[in-house]
């Protein structure tokens, strides 16, 4: 939430027209939201919540690590700050994954099932959209397609510690697409939106004063 607010402030600053950090979460049309399907799944049991968190936290961890090298200094600074926080999130979800996986037969069964269920929604996290590709070329955005092996390593290590099976059969398999079309805001949604706004800008304004 808070990281999204920082992105939103910056997006508002870039887009101008009186846009503020509140314009994006509250005053956007439903069709203008772009978030990952993984984050749109209905609320399930606790194992499912932990798996969704683990998958997304691991993604964010590598995403922010890479975004620190953005040619946009403000994005790099947001990434540096956010990385410290998502490291906590990743630690939290990884530890719960280990506790559930290496826990009772029931907890193990439930988390293993959740891993298989949500795996198909992770592919699109590494699938750049058109505006993102332009931003990657100019060194502003992260080439998310390169993060996949890093993410897989993080997940594989955690699953191993949790005595859980890595869904090998699902590697490079078909995945659900449709992010960048649904309607609940999240951090990457704002980032993707910003990529769209950014396209038409050549100059980056200075940091915003409070």
């Amino acid at each position, binding site marked *: 939430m808070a990281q999204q*607010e920082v992105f939103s402030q910056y997006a508002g600053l870039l887009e101008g027209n009186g846009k503020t950090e509140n314009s994006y979460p509250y005053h956007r049309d439903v069709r203008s939201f772009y978030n990952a399907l993984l984050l749109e799944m209905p609320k399930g049991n606790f194992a499912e919540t932990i798996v969704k968190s683990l998958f997304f936290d691991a993604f964010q961890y590598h995403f922010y690590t890479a975004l620190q090298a953005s040619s946009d200094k*403000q994005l*790099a600074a947001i990434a540096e700050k956010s990385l410290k*926080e998502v490291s906590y999130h990743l630690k*939290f979800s990884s530890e719960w994954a280990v506790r559930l996986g290496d826990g009772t037969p029931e907890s193990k069964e439930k988390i293993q099932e959740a891993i298989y269920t949500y795996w198909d929604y992770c592919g699109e996290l590494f699938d750049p959209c058109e505006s993102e590709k332009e931003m990657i070329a100019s060194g502003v955005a992260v080439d998310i397609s390169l993060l996949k092996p890093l993410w897989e390593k993080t997940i594989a290590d955690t699953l191993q510690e949790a005595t859980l099976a890595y869904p090998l059969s699902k590697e490079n398999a078909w995945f659900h697409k449709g992010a960048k079309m649904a309607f609940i805001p999240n951090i990457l949604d704002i980032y993707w939106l910003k990529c769209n706004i950014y396209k038409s800008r050549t100059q980056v304004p200075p940091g915003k*004063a409070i």
Partner: protein
Amino acid sequence: MITKESILSILAQVSDPEVPVLSILDLGIVRDIQIHDDDKVDIGITPTYSGCPAMSMIAVNIKMELLAHGLKQVNIHEVLSPAWTTDWMTEEGKQKLNAYGIAPPQYNTANNPHERDAVVPCPLCESKDTVLVSQFGSTACKALYKCNSCLEPFDYFKCH
């Protein structure tokens, strides 16, 4: 005559809204003070956590305090990089935190052991015989501990 020292002594009176015993200087969130020729003052502050709602309140409090001390023009800006770390907390701040009942960070981030191996003295009875109950306490930045001597639970402000 406005000096950096006079500004600092005024800022020492601005407290953190979350932990009121700590001043913003104890926390190390004031990163930059610039005094210009026309007595205009620029202050850079860094959030302990992204989008921290206390930041705007802190910014207003700094402004009010400085204006109340006769300064005419105060600008406050946010500094995100380098990101805030518990290493910037002052010794005095750590002691105040301890007296408040929260065990302060015990290590430097450079030589921070795994939380399972950290020795965290109880802020209530000073015993070192304490045990980690949960890596995450009332907030993500704190871990929950229990003292084996006085049996009281307490929060530990982790190094990060």
